[in-house]
């Protein structure tokens, strides 16, 4: 099968249009991306299912974005799209477009590990709703991508299968926890990716890899089949190299689902229709607390330039306070581990995944969990268990829940004054693999992203330029976060599109002289 490498540089909308017009087949598009994966990702490209090499056997430039590439299944899906086109069926805008799926969403028959040894060998018996919706749109899932174990982390270094590398600099992290999907899209292995975001796990990797990444309004995208980290916060969302592609993917994913009781039963906002409306007359609030939250100077400069550009494009910009945003990080790191401690209780060796045999059920549970979970997961389970314990629950979990209510109220008040809120997505650019060893320092990556998570509001990160980390990193991407009221996901994408238009960021690392280690 001929595969034109240029196809991997096209965006999703362009590929979908070309497939729809018969200019290229879905299979040709797929093969080009499989070739790219085989060349750059460190998988054993052989057979129906390609597996990632063990971390020790990976080359220094292997991205290690994919844990598994479901090649045969993807070829079947692409061929099905081509047959439908040949039969004269109308195809959706993303039919035949390949996608990298985070390994926290189930796909029937394909292994799902959540980046953990705990789930080694588990093959889910069912499809996540997101997976079903992707298939219904004719999107071709390439495989499952690497992630911080059970989505706990901000660098993808917590994967039990080794870290993913950043296509902008292979010595650096792609962010996390959805680092595998981000690296796949930024590295040209896939035009689209799906991640999940609990406290910033889509937005921060998007910022670190120069992508557009969106966390939908809580409840907009079904969580059925998303292996839970923190159920009240988890949302799946898109990665793409431009805003239009991200919006198209968001539109495929969002919508009511009777299998998720927390799914919003109303029709989702039309994020695609809003794209061209610009920012003329739009009131934009810069969140004081998040702008000042320990940003690297390079990030801050790029952010201020983007704000000025927005103003020049006709938006009115003012500074707005979210008085309790500063408490977001501590509140998040109680609520999320508390829920996780309960959500992860089901991994006990009884029904699926890993089992370490022992004399009694209790001893088997303990041995299995001790061996199956990595250190960060164990840390959060312990924090969460403590936060819910009798005698502490009021001071920790319930207090955090109260702070959460205050933060949600801050957002509601702020949105009385402005249409959207903005901030830098992350305080710094992508850091070196292994550079952040202190868990608390790692948690500080999420300072700007957790407030929107706690409030449930939608947020999109859009790349606005590059900055140096002040220590000779060379150009690395910087993201701007746009937050909107509940259910106003369309407003996030509309502003993101306007920012993209005025900033003119090129998502190809090579265009910035990046993509090499420094």
């Amino acid at each position: 099968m001929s595969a034109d490498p240029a196809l991997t540089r096209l965006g999703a909308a362009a590929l979908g249009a070309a497939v729809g017009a018969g200019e290229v087949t879905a299979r040709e598009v797929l093969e080009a991306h499989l070739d790219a994966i085989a060349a750059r990702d460190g998988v054993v490209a052989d057979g129906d299912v390609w597996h990632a090499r063990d971390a020790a056997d990976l080359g220094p430039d292997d991205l290690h974005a994919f844990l598994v590439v479901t090649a045969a299944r993807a070829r079947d899906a692409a061929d099905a799209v081509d047959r439908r086109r040949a039969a004269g069926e109308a195809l959706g805008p993303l039919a035949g477009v390949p996608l990298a799926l985070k390994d926290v969403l189930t796909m029937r028959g394909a292994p799902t590990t959540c980046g953990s040894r705990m789930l080694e060998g588990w093959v889910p018996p069912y499809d996540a709703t997101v997976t079903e919706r992707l298939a219904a749109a004719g999107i071709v899932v390439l495989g499952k991508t690497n992630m911080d174990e059970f989505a706990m982390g901000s660098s993808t270094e917590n994967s039990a299968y080794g870290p993913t590398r950043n296509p902008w600099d292979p010595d650096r992290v792609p962010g996390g926890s959805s680092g595998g999907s981000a690296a796949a899209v930024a590295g040209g292995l896939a035009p689209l990716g799906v991640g999940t975001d609990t406290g910033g796990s889509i937005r921060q990797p998007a910022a670190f890899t120069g992508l557009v990444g969106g966390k939908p309004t809580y409840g907009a995208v079904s969580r059925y089949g998303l292996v839970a980290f923190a159920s009240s916060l988890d949302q799946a969302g898109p990665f793409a190299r431009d805003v239009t592609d991200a919006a198209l993917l968001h539109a495929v994913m969002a919508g009511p689902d009777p299998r998720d009781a927390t799914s919003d039963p109303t029709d989702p906002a039309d994020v695609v229709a809003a794209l061209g409306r610009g920012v003329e007359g739009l009131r934009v609030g810069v969140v004081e607390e998040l702008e000042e939250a320990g940003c690297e100077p390079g990030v801050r400069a790029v952010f201020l330039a983007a704000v000025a550009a927005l103003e020049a494009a006709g938006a009115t910009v003012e500074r707005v306070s979210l008085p309790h945003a500063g408490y977001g990080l501590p509140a998040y790191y109680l609520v999320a581990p508390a829920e996780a401690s309960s959500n992860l209780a089901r991994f006990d060796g009884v029904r699926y995944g890993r089992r370490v045999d022992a004399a009694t059920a209790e001893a088997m549970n303990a041995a299995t969990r001790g061996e199956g979970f990595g250190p960060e997961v164990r840390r959060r389970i312990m924090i969460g268990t403590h936060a819910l314990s009798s005698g502490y629950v009021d001071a920790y979990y319930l207090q955090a829940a109260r702070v959460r209510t205050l933060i949600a109220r801050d957002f509601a008040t702020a949105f009385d004054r402005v249409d959207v809120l903005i901030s830098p997505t992350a305080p710094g650019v992508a850091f070196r693999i292994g550079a952040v060893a202190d868990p608390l320092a790692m948690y500080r990556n999420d300072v700007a992203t957790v407030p929107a998570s706690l409030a449930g509001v939608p947020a999109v990160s859009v790349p606005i330029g590059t900055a140096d980390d002040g220590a000779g990193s060379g150009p690395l991407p910087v993201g701007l976060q746009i937050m909107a009221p509940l259910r106003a996901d369309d407003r996030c994408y509309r502003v993101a599109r306007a920012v993209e238009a005025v900033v003119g960021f090129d998502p190809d690392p090579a265009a910035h002289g990046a993509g090499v280690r420094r």
Partner: protein
Amino acid sequence: MSAWETVVGLEVHVELSTATKMWCGCPTTFGDAPNTNVCPVCSGQPGALPVPNARAVHDATLLGLALGGTIAPRCRFHRKNYFYPDLAKNYQISQYDVPLVSDGVLEVEVERDGELVLETVRIERLHMEEDTGKSLHLGATGRLHGADRSAIDYNRSGVPLLEIVSRPDVRDPETAQAYLRELQAIVRTLGVSDARMEEGSIRCDANVSVRRPGEPLGTRCEIKNLNSVRSLGRAIAHEAARQIAVLEDGGSIVMETRHWDEDAGVTRTLRRKETVTDYRYFPDPDLVEVTTSPRRVAEVRAELPELPAAARARLVAAGVPRAQAATVLGGGMLALLDAAVAAGAPAPAAANWLAGEVTGWLAAEGVALADAGLTGTHVAELVAMVEEGAVSATQAKQVLAGVLEDRGAAGPRAVAEARGLSQLRDEGELARVVAEVVAANPDAVAAVRDGNDRAIGALVGQVMRATGGSADPRRTNELLRAAIGS
């Protein structure tokens, strides 16, 4: 020193008989092959999510209203976290701070010194939760101890369960038994559960303590493994006696869970409660609040059928003995009785059949009423046949058995005809048999003449045997006495 007072609070679990489970679409059928009624949700697969069963919420609301409770306008589900292999998610979805129903009441009739007394038991709360799977221990003994390995059947996992917690208002075993029977009768009347203790679709734990009257509550022990109404009564009596003996011996009661040993008739320590399990309750983030508007409450209230207490009063007023009324209601046979009456049977006669022969046959054959195929028309027809003298009482029982054996495929008249059951009405034939029996039993005849009235019974029996049960016993008696000249 004054006597001891027993104080009992009851926790009753009722499995709802909804078609599907609490959080998924799996069937709730009892007794299917292990792990056939399971899906990603009820087997706790990663990523699966619970969605509340609206029917279960409705049924819980209906029972709450039947118990005179207040329905919470808003309530939520909490997670009760603990590790146990038959708990698929290692947490149970239950309710915690705000139950669906609070402050109910149940009035029960208790027989005391030959008189029926009305006792009031307050209900603290009724909340919704889910059942667990079942551990099966494979090995020689079938118990955990000594088992080679264990297997788990998740068919029951996620079956909707209601927990009904009484206040400590019960003072004796009889009231506890009456409370449990009355609850059974109510849930059956509402049709929300078949409430079978032997299948575990209704389960009861008793919190028992003793004190001197007027003193604060004593330390309580929770008694588990109560498999029948009878064992509930026995266990409370034994446990109260045990506690009194300990206290009178100068000892003290330890708060603990005790296991009722039915065979030995004693309670034994199961686990001490000094290390209280911390369930780390918190609101289940996978679920949203359950809201019940006043309008919804009114809608559900309008569905309430006549409750057992009212039905009992009505039956007694219609001439049905109290004990039979209780059996009919407890057996969920009120609708059948009403249908029989509607089809022309007098209530006492119909109740007599239902509480007697029908109940006995169902128990002996292990058939559920719903599966027996018996209709009100059948019962009325049977009553009429006896009344008309078309069949003798003995034959009527055979007819009923025939109807039940065929699961109601044929009515009593058809069964009687098919089996050749009809009362002997030929006076000449009966007189001939009577003469034969009198001639063949001179001793018994002499005894009757000597005034031994019981001897006549033996002669009637002989006539019944000779006629294959088709003789009318009253007429036989008359003819015998005439023939003997007594």
